[in-house]
């Protein structure tokens, strides 16, 4: 079921108006983090949802983009805005590198998941050991609070940027649903051998998908650096990013345009709710995420976004007198 363009665009347009209504820093931060999660999730979705290549190591791309953005502005005095574009490039590069190796050696399914995890860990270890990346000390961006330096005195500035990025990612997802490339990608996901028999260049298709996915993840990494002004190997390449990247689309609706947005909202809301209940004790929110993942896999494999369709279908069936 393809998402029509208007259904994809409407929520984003509505979100654009949000800062006009909200003045609270708290809610703006909530909205920013939700969109950030959606971006991360959408990036994973391109490769894992539409492409069916489920990576457990998306941090490899995110972290590379983040470090690129941080190092380019700290060591090479490159303008932070340009750094975001370059971060996307580095993320894409990481994606292409990982993809070229994995796909060329025919890794699929669980093996692919494991190799991506291993790469993310290798990157983390290297970043942790090498003085260039600040090793264990991490990198801190100096507080500047000027738009030219990609730091906004008001949160609404950050909101605008992340909304734009998420809109681009969503547009990419929509394009994939409606393009030949996307059709080829889905064909590869469904049955690689059949796709190859149809004349699709399977390796190239997968490679493009992972490169795009890497580029978006890299941009997300760069945004993180600008918003939090601090980066270390655990934040950049740790398991938390990789797991979040896959939880968001899986819970929201994998392989759909709006799934990642729904998933991001669900996870973020769950996060705040559990924080309030436990007074901020760490861990509980992730327990809920894990439980939600299992419940979704068991009962709602198409994600939260399919809840509407399911309920409607159940309603129709019962109206017709079926169980």
């Amino acid at each position, binding site marked *: 079921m393809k998402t029509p363009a208007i259904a994809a665009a409407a929520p984003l347009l509505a979100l654009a108006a949000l800062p006009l*209504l*909200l*003045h*609270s*820093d*708290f*809610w703006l*931060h909530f909205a920013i983090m939700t969109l950030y999660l959606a971006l991360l999730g959408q990036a994973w979705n391109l490769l894992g949802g539409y492409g069916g290549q489920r990576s457990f190591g998306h941090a490899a791309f995110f972290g590379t983009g983040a470090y690129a953005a941080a190092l380019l502005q700290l060591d090479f005095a490159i303008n932070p805005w340009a750094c975001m574009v370059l971060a996307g490039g580095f993320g894409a590069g990481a994606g292409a590198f990982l993809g070229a190796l994995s796909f060329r050696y025919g890794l699929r399914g669980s093996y692919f998941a494991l190799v991506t995890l291993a790469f993310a860990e290798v990157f983390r270890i290297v970043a*942790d050991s090498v003085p260039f990346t600040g*090793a*264990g*000390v*991490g990198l*801190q961006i*100096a*507080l500047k*609070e000027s738009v030219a330096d990609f730091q906004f005195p008001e949160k609404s500035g950050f909101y605008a940027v992340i909304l734009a990025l998420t809109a681009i990612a969503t547009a990419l997802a929509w394009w994939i649903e409606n393009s030949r490339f996307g059709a080829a990608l889905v064909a590869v996901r469904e049955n690689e051998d059949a796709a190859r028999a149809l004349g699709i260049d399977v390796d190239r298709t997968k490679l493009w998908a992972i490169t795009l996915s890497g580029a978006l993840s890299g941009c997300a990494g760069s945004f993180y650096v600008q918003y*939090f*002004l*601090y980066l*270390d190997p*655990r*934040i950049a390449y740790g398991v938390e990013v990789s797991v979040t990247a896959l939880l968001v689309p899986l819970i929201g609706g994998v392989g759909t345009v709006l799934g990642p947005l729904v998933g991001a909202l669900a996870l973020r809301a769950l996060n*705040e*709710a559990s*924080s*309030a209940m436990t*007074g*901020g004790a*760490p861990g509980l929110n992730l327990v809920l995420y894990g439980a939600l993942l299992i419940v979704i896999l068991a009962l709602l494999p198409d994600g939260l976004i399919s809840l509407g369709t399911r309920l409607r279908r159940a309603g129709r069936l019962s109206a017709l007198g079926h169980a």
Partner: protein
Amino acid sequence: MPRHHWSVTRRRVLGSAGAAAIAAIAAPAILRAQAKTVKVGIIHPVTGGVSYSGTQSRAGALMAVEDVNARGGIKSLGGATIEGLISDAQSKVDVAVSEIEKYNEAGVSAILGGYASFICMATTQAAAKHGIPYVVDVGTDDRIVSGGLTNTFRFSPGYGVFVGTAVSALRDINAAAGNPAKTAIVVHEDSAFGTGTAGLLAKELPGIGIEVFEVIKHPTPTLDFSNIVLTIKAKKPDIVIPANYYNEYVLLARTMLQQKVRPKAIYSVLGGGASQYKFVKEFPEAAQYIMDCNHWYNPKNPAALALKKRTEEKGLFYTYEVFLNYTAAMLLADALERAASSERAKITEALAASTWAGHFMPYGPTKFEHGQNTGARAVNLQVQDNDIKVILPAEFANAKPVFPVPA
């Protein structure tokens, strides 16, 4: 247990922030209630890799808040009590920064704590964004006070002072024993404090005739020191110089004992476990004769000893985290008193002009330059007879150095 006059509230995001949000949507200005309390954010890593230190730190800070409120609060503010809003940095920078943002939302007048350098570096900056005065409790990285942040104040010394004191003390101790020490290996933890300290040591030690064989780094946490100790065993340095946090320090010392590696001295600089009663009590054999250049209280000051007794009565060890946090909180209370205001900018001004002398630290006169108290001093200690003694400087010493370690 003394009766509590203060309230300590855990931050509840949805609670007060949600209420603030509703107020924000409904009305442009948030009305502040009449200040019967001054809100101070107290943040420490009470869970995670440096949790022991975080917990000790928090205890010290809260004892000070208790004392201030018990003696009538901030008199210039009509007896307003200090309301400490405590939070857990979880030994993670991103979590700590989020907590600072929440403090801003809650309208704190000042923030105290951080403990670890790697946390303080980010939290002071996050607080600076909102102009909140920040008193660093321990965080010895000198970049914390040299980054140009006008909101940041540190009463205790940074690792520059420690390395300077440690190196000249070592030169004197070595000379007094006939210069038996000529080589060293430095073992440090890999975050801001350890890396910075080790870097300085590697630079300064050759100047007093000590060759540094190797500088070995390790992450926090590290739970197996077999390989590092093997390397030390192979290289046979005269001195081993650790600069790390409590758990790793203890494990290193114990592993060295286990593998029968006995250098002429373990001479730590800001050794996480060295000047720690907990270590001395639990592992006396491993702790015996370890020398340290670290934070310490004036052993001749009755107020310091009274706090020690009180801390031990609570079932806690009297560690540097406790008395440094106590002191930092009292510094803040004094500034609040002189500022006669709960406004952030006025408190910052008061801190910058502080000449506070009501403390029990072995320091010179208080004077803040770029956020650093120039009166702050380091002290040399050694574990002797299952107790921690001050061996230098002479004016505070209650024992003589034992060097080299008897065979």
